[in-house]
């Protein structure tokens, strides 16, 4: 075969294009199958009623509420802690051994398998601190899991604000904290928000961390306090898929669809925010 750069170019392009399409395929299939099989189950009753007959009928209301409570609880702990430590790391911490150790620890925290968080939560919050299996213990466990996401995205958002903004502010005799408050945070906010939403969707979708710390197998009532157990969508899905016999598949797929919609819509909001931020960026 004669050397033909034009043909080589065409082959390379086709291969790269094909690879991209193959990546797309599973996403489309997953969403397609779940929507197709789950859509018939979705009704007002399915979303707002208690489960009945050993979860084979009725709705998934307590699982939706439980997931929302867990997300809220997770944010309550992870948001202030994560954002504040990111501000400290970027704006105040000097580059020394301790700082580098902290950064390394955060990266490692992100790599810990989620079931390990579950065990950790069981050991510390459920048993040692005696919170029992509860919204509090589950939220704390999830919070530790999403901390690295929030810290990393917040750090990136802060670092993307030009150093010159800080210098201008400081050169006017403005204090360091006011500089951060008025010249850095406002411009980093959309980036921070994106990270928060990603954290939320992660917290809403994980099963392993809540398995031992909060999730109830079957609890057809709403929680009274943060020391109550709740049902949660991912665990409920696991239960009706593997633990309860003779569940109508459409109930399973319906539950999966609701979970998927919650997580996807959060990701969608994150994407919209990010693109708005990029358009607004004026430097």
């Amino acid at each position: 075969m004669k050397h033909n750069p034009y043909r080589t170019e065409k082959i390379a392009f086709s291969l790269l294009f094909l690879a991209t399409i193959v990546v797309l395929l599973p996403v489309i299939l997953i969403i397609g199958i779940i929507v197709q099989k789950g859509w018939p189950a979705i009704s007002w009753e399915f979303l707002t009623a208690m489960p009945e007959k050993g979860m084979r009928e009725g709705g998934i209301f307590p699982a939706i509420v439980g997931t929302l409570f867990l997300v809220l609880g997770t944010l309550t702990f992870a948001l202030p802690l994560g954002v504040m430590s990111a501000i400290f790391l970027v704006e105040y911490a000097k580059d020394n051994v301790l700082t580098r150790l902290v950064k390394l620890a955060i990266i490692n925290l992100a790599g810990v398998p989620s079931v390990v968080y579950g065990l950790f939560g069981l050991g510390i919050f459920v048993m040692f601190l005696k919170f029992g299996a509860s919204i509090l213990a589950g939220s704390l466990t999830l919070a530790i899991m999403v901390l690295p996401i929030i810290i990393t995205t917040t750090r990136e958002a802060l670092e993307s604000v030009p150093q010159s903004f800080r210098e201008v502010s400081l050169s006017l005799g403005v204090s360091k904290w006011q500089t951060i408050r008025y010249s850095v945070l406002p411009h980093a906010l959309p980036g921070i928000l994106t990270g928060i939403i990603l954290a939320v969707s992660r917290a809403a979708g994980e099963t392993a961390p809540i398995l031992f710390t909060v999730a109830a197998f079957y609890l057809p009532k709403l929680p009274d306090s943060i020391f109550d157990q709740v049902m949660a969508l991912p665990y409920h899905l696991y239960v009706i898929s593997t633990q309860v016999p003779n569940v109508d598949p459409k109930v399973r797929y319906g539950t999966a669809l609701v979970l998927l919609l919650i997580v996807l819509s959060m990701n969608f909001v994150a994407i919209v925010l990010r693109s708005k931020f990029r358009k607004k960026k004026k430097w």
Partner: protein
Amino acid sequence: MVNNGVKIEVQGLEIWFDQIYALKPLNIQIKDKEILGVIGPANSGKTTFLRSLNRFNDLNDNFRFKGSISLDGKNIHKDIAVGELRKKVGMVFALPIPLPLSIFENVVYGPRRHGVNDKNKLEEIVERTLKEAYLWDEVKDRLQVSGMKLSGGQQQRLCLARTLAVEPDVILYDEPCSGLDPISTAKIEEAMSRFKDKYTQILVTNNTKQAARVSDRTAFFLMGDLVEIDRTDKMFTYPSDSRTNDYISGRFG
């Protein structure tokens, strides 16, 4: 307040960044309301010297220094809080850096942070400083427009107005015209000449001709050393050091 017309007194100042010896022992007196031009090639220590006057070198973690600097007889590291020092010693940077805010909000950024919130007072500050910076006529009808929409020269005058808004005694210029066209440069220089009765000004510049045009005295730095400081007219006609002569006549640098 002023000791024999001396505004800033630098005694035995030495500066290191990590292992780099950036400024060799420096003694210099800056007179009240003079314009001191500072010239020298890259890495001569002129910007390091300038940034030591508002303690901007402190932002660098590896910064170490010896010696003392006093402003109106007060040691700037011991007797004055760093925020107060920077209010008194303003700085205009090499590149115009408007904050992503309106023209109005850019100018009042400093005053607002220092607790001025009265609308009339802020409007007064904006009009006064923009007039002083020769920008008022060009922007008075569009103060709510983003400062980033202005041209480079206008942006630099906006930054000058922002510096003036916190009412400094001293203004440091760090190569303020390096990115500007000749007309914008002329406007900044005109503003500097008009400021003579109000502010003490220190101009670091790569442009020796600019120092010759604007400054009362000129200091020449080379490799961290102050080679020579003298009246500008004398320095540019009869420099006492041959290295100064070589530099200003364009033989190196």
